[in-house]
């Protein structure tokens, strides 16, 4: 079945803009991104929007749909009433470039600050061994598609531009946690996570977890355990020293 969908889409650039009203013909089973594409192909050829895979795998088409941060390709029109007007606006935490496209370079800058994996040497046969249950924790975090919805919704930066300098955001707490839980990694990034990445500024309101399209338990599985690990290191120097001497924690602080 086809029907006319009423949409409001934010049009504008750095200098400002406004919601434009459109009526788009859509079909049953379509998603918001389909409607945006049809709008682009038939009424607004220069409507700027990012997208790639259209299957929830690349994390390009993040936007706020009726105020809620979501992927446009995974938001089905059937979630809304046929008579409802769907409003699409760019994600709020990042500066607008044009229309629905924002400048997400904040995230790429923060990515540069995470020291990479540095593994122990390979086994004698040239391979490495890790048990499935040991890699699974990291694997959950590596499901991240970098849609940056968690960054967008995090109140530490959403309305506080001034915090961006000292705060890497949930996406990168995932990364710190993933590396910290890697069975063979030799870098100790706990101090860095706390100081440079601002892990302490997070007060675990779980907004990030709620919007994650991959269903990663960002707060429970990454941020809270990471906070505990930081605390272990910080407040228990005797255990830390003992572990270091007996080489139970052979990692090097970076």
């Amino acid at each position, binding site marked *: 079945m086809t029907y006319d969908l009423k949409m409001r889409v934010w049009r504008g*650039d750095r200098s400002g803009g406004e919601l434009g009203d459109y009526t788009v013909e859509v*079909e*049953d*089973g*379509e*998603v918001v991104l*389909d409607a945006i594409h049809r709008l*682009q*192909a*038939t009424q607004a*050829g*220069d*409507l*700027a*929007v*990012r*997208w*790639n*895979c*259209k*299957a*929830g*795998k*690349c*994390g*390009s088409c993040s936007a706020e749909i009726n105020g809620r941060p979501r992927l446009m390709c*995974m938001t*089905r029109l059937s979630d809304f009433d046929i008579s409802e007007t769907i409003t699409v606006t760019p994600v709020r935490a990042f500066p607008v*470039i*044009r229309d629905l*496209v924002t*400048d*997400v*370079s904040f995230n*790429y*800058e923060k*990515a*540069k600050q995470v*020291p*990479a*994996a540095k*593994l122990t040497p*390979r086994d004698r046969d*040239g*391979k*490495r*061994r*890790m*048990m*499935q249950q040991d*890699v699974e924790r*990291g*694997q959950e975090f*590596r*499901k*991240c*598609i*970098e849609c940056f919805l968690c960054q967008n919704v995090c109140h530490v930066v959403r309305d506080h531009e001034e915090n961006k300098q000292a705060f890497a955001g949930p996406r990168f707490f995932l990364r710190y946690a993933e590396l910290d839980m*890697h069975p063979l*990694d030799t870098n100790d990034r706990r101090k860095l996570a706390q100081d440079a990445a601002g892990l302490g500024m997070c007060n675990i309101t779980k907004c990030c977890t709620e919007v994650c399209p991959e269903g990663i338990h960002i707060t429970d599985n990454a941020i809270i355990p990471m906070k505990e690990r930081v605390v272990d290191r910080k407040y228990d120097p005797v255990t830390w020293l003992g572990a270091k001497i007996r080489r139970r924690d052979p990692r090097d602080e970076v």
Partner: protein
Amino acid sequence: MTDSTDQRHPMTGNRMDPGADTGFERHEYDVVVIGAGGAGLRAAIAAHDAGARVAIVCKSLLGKAHTVMAEGGIAASMGNVYPDDNWKVHFRDTMRGGKMLNNWRMAQLHAQEAPERVLELEEWGALFDRTPDGLISQRDFGGHRYARLAHVGDRTGLEMIRTLQQRAVALGIDVFMECTVTDILKDGGRVSGAFGYWRETGRFVVFDSPSVVLATGGIGKSYQVTSNSWEYTGDGHALAMKAGASLINMEFVQFHPTGMVWPPSVKGILVTESVRGDGGVLKNSEGERFMFDYIPEFFKKETADSIEEAEGWYTDKKNHRRPPELLPRDEVARAINSEIKAGRGSPHGGVFLDIASRRDAEFIRRRLPSMYHQFKELADVDITAEPMEVGPTCHYVMGGVEVDPDTEESIVPGLYAAGEVAGGMHGSNRLGGNSLSDLLVFGRRAGHNAAYATHRLKGDRPTVHDEDVKAAAAQALAPFEIDGGENPYTIQKDLQDVMQRLVGIIRKAGELEESLKEIDKLKERAKKLAVEGHRQYNPGWHLAIDLTNMLVVSECIAKAALEREESRGGHTRDDFPGPSDEWGTVNLVLTLAGGDFASPVELRHQRLPVMPGDLKELFDS
């Protein structure tokens, strides 16, 4: 390198001042890599490791390239699950999968080097699924004799791109994101650089670089039903031709047997072959496992001909032959196509892919989490409880830039190609899992060789000529100048319709001739494109530029498909149903004689390189 008086983007170095042109932004590098998927990233890392100053230029944000959608795994004969596996078996599988039309040397290098490339990813932080003794797990896939695909659930591509991306970032490689290259610049016969525009501002940028690596992926967006993303507009193929390089094997387009067919919005989205590798089977509307009716002579010896034998194979590969559901993709896609045409399709015009009745829900969710999620979210189908509906979708082009198998250099000095944009490696049909390994093996080789090629010039760098830069700029802006009224989106849609209808899975002479006429008409219309708005982040303008690439590549496909009068791999001719020995030694080579899109595509025959005796012996048994 950048002009400090301008306002610059802190990360990309992109100009932030829109408006009147104030001259071209210029950068100097030793190697410029176009594309940031698996091949591009691996090439850049290799070039960096060889001491070169490298830039990656990509149309999307870093980490969003099409590699991210690869699901099943990376084929590499590490022997972690079956110690009998080795490069020779992998080589043999690859050649047979490509119906012996592969460039043997590429297939050999690929099989030999893939295991180390996978271990390298692990070194850089990739977390692959494990075997019970802690090694990298390997899964079954079509056409591979042993379980061989290193994987992470069904999101291997994401793991691969993220790992390479993080490695490239850690090495400090410069990345020009959302920047499209529209021309390869030359000095005499040699590459001297590349010309492009920032998508964000529409401003032009010139790269001065004696070596350029094309890693731009494929052409799927020329088809209506495709698993490919918007970026797959054949840019590298077209850039190479315009620069004087040649394409081979363009008639071979892979239709993946299993794409989603419903709802319409997701038609074409990939359903991983791992579903079949992990036990899923194909059924028609009569509930019959029809693949047993479609076992070709060529694969009879290694394919199970009864359900009993096929069932035994999952646990005991020594004493059972492979289930026919795991024949190479071309065979399975044709079979599905025939079933649908014979009226035995599913309600939405596909066939049924059933794993629900064969594996328990926990297994399915663990091994195929993305598929579970994708069907649940987009089609309201619970794949642990009911079968999926699937049908063929345009997935991959075997054809691409003709390169030297060892160095990945095209016939144009300084121009390299790796990954899907390169041709030869996969012959007439690619095996699943061989793409990700291809990206790694040949991406590395291309980057490495490109770096040394620049190094060997010892500072005697070719020149970027101003008149070429001005011409490239004028050409890119042409869509704004004309007021012809043609909408680029409409032309793209019409092209997709032509390719889908006339140059699809099953082809015949009359339709192919018609397609060439249609493409000619579209080319004429494309001269009268009108683009609204201005240069800043304008998708209409971007598409207008990509469209010229799609048109020339589509013409190559149709032309080569009309010429090859046989059926082989990803090229099936209704009027020439079988393979022919004569055609089995021929590559079709396509060039643009005049070096611009106005000149016609020329086609010639070339003999396939002959495999040495010691490798030939592998096929005697």
